[in-house]
């Protein structure tokens, strides 16, 4: 096991982290901003993957890559207008039940539209090769995922930290009643954040589609890791989402390499430890 092996595995861990980051950041900010639990987030990711694979089948990779977030955001808009706005005041239990039910409704919807057979998605030529880094050959596409995740993180950090809308979101997460008193339309803010979160879930689906198989239950499979990231990182914060994703990615990857027998339980053990030591997660938005 030379140094190349460890570089390789570190890149693997980073790639998994970035995929999870794209999913968890939307979920955690929706959580933090409006105390709204959207379990159907994973289903939106699956939708994104199907849209990307279908569009890519006809028009090529890039149209699929660009259309998936837009269409999934549109689905988010429909969900918001039809269901989520009404559920805003009904308490976490009802919200969990409704969005949990939504998972299965959306799952069967994907089965009705796209059938049970798994889909694949081909990469564009520019991303399908491998890049040599030192002694390591690494797939270009995976580096693209890492770069994309880092880019989205940078953009979100900039928006949340340096712009007026970012300040409004942070104020809303911190104390929504007070933010409302100061004249911020928190409900509209929530709507915008919700749509962006959905778009990011769609984007995650689109970038996952070429390396994974696109199946109806992919949303269910990714939901648990995403929730673990959110819980470890702490609700509502960008810093929590990126930290949680990195922890998950590295524990999962190096767990599989070093202690394969424990790979599937390691992350749950870590989750338990975090919950005991820091019940609110590592970097919750509210102190």
């Amino acid at each position, binding site marked *: *096991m030379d140094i190349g*092996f460890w570089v*390789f*595995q570190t890149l*693997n861990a980073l*790639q*998994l982290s970035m995929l999870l980051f794209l999913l968890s950041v939307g979920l955690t900010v929706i959580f933090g901003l409006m105390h709204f639990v959207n379990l159907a987030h994973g289903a939106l990711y699956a939708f994104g993957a199907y849209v990307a694979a279908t569009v890519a089948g006809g028009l090529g990779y890039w149209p699929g890559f660009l259309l998936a977030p837009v269409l999934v955001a549109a689905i988010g808009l429909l969900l918001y207008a039809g269901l989520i706005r009404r559920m805003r005041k009904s308490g976490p239990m009802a919200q969990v039940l409704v969005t949990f039910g939504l998972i299965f409704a959306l799952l069967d919807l994907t*089965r009705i539209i796209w*059938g*049970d*057979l*798994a*889909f*694949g998605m*081909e990469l564009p030529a520019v991303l*399908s090769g*491998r890049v040599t880094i030192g002694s390591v*050959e690494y*797939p270009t*596409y*995976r580096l693209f995922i890492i770069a994309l995740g880092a880019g989205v993180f940078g953009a979100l950090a900039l928006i949340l930290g340096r712009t007026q809308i970012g300040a409004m979101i942070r104020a809303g997460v911190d104390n929504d009643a007070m933010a409302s008193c100061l004249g911020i339309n928190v409900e509209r803010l929530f709507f915008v954040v919700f749509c962006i979160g959905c778009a990011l879930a769609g984007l995650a689906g689109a970038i*996952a589609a*070429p*390396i*994974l*198989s*696109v*199946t109806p*239950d*992919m949303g269910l*499979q*990714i939901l648990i890791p995403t929730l673990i990231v959110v819980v470890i990182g702490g609700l509502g914060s960008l810093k929590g989402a990126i930290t949680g994703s990195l922890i998950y990615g590295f524990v*999962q*990857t*190096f767990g*599989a*390499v070093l202690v*394969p027998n424990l*790979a*599937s339980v390691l992350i749950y053990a870590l989750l338990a430890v975090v919950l005991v030591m820091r019940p609110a997660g590592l970097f919750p938005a509210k102190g």
Partner: protein
Amino acid sequence: MKTLLSAGAAALATTSLVHPAAAEDITVGLLLPYSGVYAALGQDIEAGFRLGLEQFGGETDATFEIVAEDTEVKPPVGLAKARKLVLQDKVDVIAGIVSSGVLGAVSDFVDSAKVPLIVANAGNDEATGANCSPYIVRMSFSNGQVNRPMGKWMREQGINTVFTMAPDYAAGQQMIAGFVEGFQSAGGEIVGQEFTPFQKTQDFGPYLAKAKASGADAVYVFYAGGEAISFVKQYDSFGLKSGLPLYGAGFLTSPLYVEAEGPAAEGVIAALHYVPTIDNEANAAFVATFEAKTGRTPSEYAAHGYDAAHALVLATAAGATDRESIAAALPKVSFSGPRGATAIDPATNNIVQPIYVYETVAGTDGLTQKVLAELPAEADPANGCDLAAASN
């Protein structure tokens, strides 16, 4: 419709108020997943089964009526549906079952209810080993059977060391155990093994790096369905295929989903009991009629359904009319079908069939399977099954 007509004709002929016993009217319960992860398999098996009854129905006087039930790939649901088929629909025979978990749940029930069950997929070795039953006949494959001869064949191709990978559950372990047994007894060496968390592994990157670092001559894996697609694509994207050839149990590049794997599947060499390109007359007829009916190439799952129907037709042609006689006749069935010469081993009630080594290659319209070798049929070891002793 045919059934209704014949039942109607029978009723008219007897003009009796008593429901006609119609000895040759066989009710078949199809127990398959129509929802859940294996729904596509269920559909293929049913299409094959119905086609089989249509093709061979003329060889028997019996008529068949099908009652289909959805197992949802959940063992408790499968058991409840098996009870419903037996107690309410009073079926004469059950066919189907994709998941070994569901098979484990229903096998005790069909055994004690004395209802014959034709397994049309589930490959758990135990079902025709320690847990075998005179009422359970398998027309699909067993996990060890598909992989054992491949170990010997790969050794003959000059491969000395192999790294194996499979999902961490019963089928994965049995498939790999079968291969390892064949490979080691032919003098090969296993230099590393990984069992990945079943249905929880989406990224095989960490494991693939270990396979590469192991220095093996080749990698041998079992993956199926969505995991197979992810695995094959990731194996190719890491550039391993050229230096470290990929071999496996044939489900890895099943015609059912090989198109989703795309060019990444080219060059993968795998062993399976059926591929659509097997060169024999029965298979040519099967492929042609299946394609005409469904518009797609038959998978091994369709072949299971087709052969299960064929076996049932032959059992009734041999005079079987009810549960007991069908159960007694099924193990004696043998025929030459799409998979070549197939028979049932009376010692275990498992199918005996040749295994085909095939390579996935680019054809004129999409990927196709090039058969490299036909490995002779071998009966599974009894593995604790005492059917032979019981019948003596």
